[in-house]
């Protein structure tokens, strides 16, 4: 009988009278099992993992319950024993891998630490083993990987390196705390596949902590749903997600489904609104955080909704910044056609941008009224006229005028994103660029903002450029889709044709990442119609 990790009736609180952070949590993970722990922020899922490692924050304490690894009771184990278990028997992955590395040390040197402590390896043998681990987690060039500093790695590679580090002590169990939340879909899938391979290969027991139900459906054997410190529902993945009992589980499921809607009909007018010809931009070494663009040519037609798909680092944000003039192109031309607004600002404001971060696009120190009136300051309008216009656009995006006297911190993300759109509309733009405009919002708000954009597109005849990494946004909003990969345009197609048969290798990876792999697709379980089928069969369970 292999040893299990068992948590039984765990209660964690701050020692005071208030509600405990964890209230009678029980769960178990067997070797070779992939267990998902699902819940919103503050539900206690991370604290569960911290309790297992005996690393609760100082303000919290374990009040009752037991945590057993095989026959060892962890809650009463001495610190020296726990240090052997941490990393040696139970490894851990984190949400922000880069911040979990010592920034002043190379990856290779990090790996030597657990190898020495838990495997007793030193010198050349340890170095050899470290390179082997890096190769195992998918570094094409392990030597280069070992030599690099954490900040030099991309988010995906950093999480791979963190996985190598967690596996270095040959643990039997892995606590993975939102390991893919900061990554895009393609990378998420690759990381989870990597973990799943370790599970199948050597019987690693995985406790996967997440709020992302789609990945749970695809990978987990069992799922536990947590809400305010309690497990409210648990069972095999198919049962829990297919026939949710708890109201909380149902609301989580609702929020993860974007209902399919009719893609707006393509415009009849085929003339170009915005044309990019061989636009290129590179950044000097000290601005490496921004992605370069190499010779992109693209037309946005009048009244069209064009999706621009790309992962982080593909150059899609650079594209948006070039079009609105926040950056200057090194090569190529960007030209604007159509009836441009007259006035002192002229064409410069005919293209407007909606940023990803609604809270960031408003100065926290000044009221929405000042922020919204600012673009009109040069227009020569009277204060009264400015106020009227602001109120008019506010009504158009569905916001009430009382918000005008609030500061950004007093508004929700959804309200602010509407206000951003209203502010852009003040300048009567022809083109609206949405740079991941809905990515920072929760699923329900996301849908209402997309609805608003569709309405503006219809009523005002706006041309929209939807820059996103979210396949669902493209699927449900856009008439055409352009795919950016490493700064180049690799595919441009009608949306339906794109999903039916992506041409470029990277496009295929993007489309594939939105459909299931080992397990099931969320939409299959929950009964939402979906064209694609699982490609890989569910492997036999032990």
């Amino acid at each position, binding site marked *: 009988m292999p040893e299990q990790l068992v948590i039984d009736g765990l209660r964690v609180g701050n020692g005071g009278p208030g509600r405990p952070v964890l209230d009678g949590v029980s769960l178990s993970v067997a070797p070779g099992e992939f267990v998902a722990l699902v819940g919103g922020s503050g539900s206690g899922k991370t604290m569960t993992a911290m309790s297992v490692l005996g690393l609760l924050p100082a303000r919290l304490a374990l009040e009752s319950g037991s945590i057993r690894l095989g026959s060892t009771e962890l809650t009463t184990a001495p610190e020296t024993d726990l240090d052997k278990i941490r990393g040696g028997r139970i490894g851990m992955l984190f949400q922000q891998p880069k911040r979990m590395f010592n920034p002043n040390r190379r990856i290779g040197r990090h790996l030597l630490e657990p190898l020495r402590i838990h495997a007793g390896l030193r010198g050349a043998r340890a170095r050899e083993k470290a390179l082997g681990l890096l190769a195992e987690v998918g570094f094409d060039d392990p030597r280069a990987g070992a030599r690099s500093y954490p900040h030099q790695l991309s988010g995906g590679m950093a999480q791979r390196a963190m996985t190598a580090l967690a596996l270095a002590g040959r643990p039997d169990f892995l606590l993975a705390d939102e390991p893919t939340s900061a990554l895009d879909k393609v990378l998420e899938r690759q990381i989870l596949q990597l973990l799943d391979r370790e599970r199948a290969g050597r019987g690693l027991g995985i406790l996967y902590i997440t709020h992302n139900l789609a990945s749970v459906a695809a990978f987990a054997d069992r799922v536990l749903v947590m809400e305010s410190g309690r497990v409210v529902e648990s069972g095999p993945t198919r049962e829990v997600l297919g026939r949710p009992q708890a109201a909380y589980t149902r609301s989580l499921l609702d929020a993860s489904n974007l209902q399919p809607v009719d893609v707006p009909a393509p415009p009849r007018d085929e003339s170009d609104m915005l044309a990019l010809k061989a636009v290129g931009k590179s950044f000097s070494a000290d601005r490496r955080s921004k992605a370069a663009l190499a010779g992109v040519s693209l037309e946005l037609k009048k009244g069209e909704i064009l999706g621009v798909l790309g992962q982080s680092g593909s150059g899609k944000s650079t594209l948006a910044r070039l079009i*609105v*003039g*926040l950056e200057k192109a090194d090569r190529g031309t960007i030209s604007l056609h159509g009836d441009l607004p007259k006035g002192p*600002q002229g064409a*410069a*404001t005919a293209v*407007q*941008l909606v*940023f990803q*971060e609604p*809270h*960031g*696009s*408003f*100065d*926290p*120190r*000044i009221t929405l009224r*000042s*922020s919204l009136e*600012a*673009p009109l*300051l*040069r227009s020569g309008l009277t204060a009264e006229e400015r106020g009227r216009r602001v109120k008019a656009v506010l009504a158009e995006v569905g916001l009430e005028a009382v918000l005008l006297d609030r500061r950004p*911190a007093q508004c929700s993300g959804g309200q602010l994103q509407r206000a*951003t759109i209203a*502010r*852009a509309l*003040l*300048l009567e733009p022809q083109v609206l660029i949405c740079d991941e405009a809905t990515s920072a919002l929760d699923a329900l708000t996301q849908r209402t903002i997309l609805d608003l954009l569709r309405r503006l597109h219809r009523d005002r005849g706006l041309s929209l450029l939807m820059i996103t990494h979210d396949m669902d946004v493209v699927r449900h909003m856009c008439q055409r889709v352009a795919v950016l990969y490493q700064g180049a345009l690799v595919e441009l197609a009608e949306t339906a044709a794109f999903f039916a048969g992506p041409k470029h290798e990277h496009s295929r990876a993007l489309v594939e990442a939105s459909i299931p792999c080992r397990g099931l697709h969320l939409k299959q379980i929950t009964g939402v119609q979906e064209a694609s089928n699982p490609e890989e069969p569910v492997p036999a369970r032990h």
Partner: protein
Amino acid sequence: MRALRKRITIDRAALAVLTLAVLAVAAAPLVMPYAPDAQNLAVRLAPPGPEHWLGTDHLGRDTLSRVLDGGRFSMSMAAAATVFTAVLGTVIGVASARRRGWLDEFLTRTNDVLLALPEMVVALFIVAAMGTGFWPLLAALTVTGWTPFARLARTLAYDVSARGFVEAARVLGCPPSFIVFRHLLPHLAAPLLGQATLRFGQLLISVGALSYLGLGVQPPQSDWGSMLAAAQPYAERAPMGIIAPGLAIFIVALCVTLIGQRAAKKAAVTAAREEAHA
């Protein structure tokens, strides 16, 4: 009693002491027991007593009166230099961050060189070239004094400029004056004010240092630094002559340092909270 003790925080105490010092120095002509330059050779180097609370100097002048009077020059000089360098540094720093390119590179490198130049040596040269007095002294303190403000203003302006709302304002075609006055300066004000408070303390010490070396205030006028220098030969017989003016500098500098450090910390916390919220 406990409630009272809780309300006396360090920065409140510092603020109270500082206010008292400023008031005493400002009202010196009214509160001085003797004229600061009234000599009385009969009571040379007298120890503290009922007649002369802090004793007298080698010419029999009342030390308390001279400390109160000397503070006028020390404090106003330091205050003028603080305001001057703060405004200059802020303008340079913001211009650097807004214009970027070669101007930024040039100003930043100038700043680097000036940082490596010892403040006191530069001041020595300027005073040697321009002579002594209020304006040369102000110039001497300004040449190197603007650099910390420029550094801070530049870094902050860069950070704020990279935030979404400034980029949004640019895309929306807001006038540059709006961006500078409504977005940048309000975000810069609190940290710069904290910095200015800290610098006032350091400049007060520098003013005293130049006067101590005989390059600052010139007789018959005196300030805390020149008093210290004059009293040094008699330190053994009348230690109060050096203790009193030095203590005055120390107390005022300490109070502004405490206030400035707390203000700077507060500004940093506010900024971090806003950043985290965004």
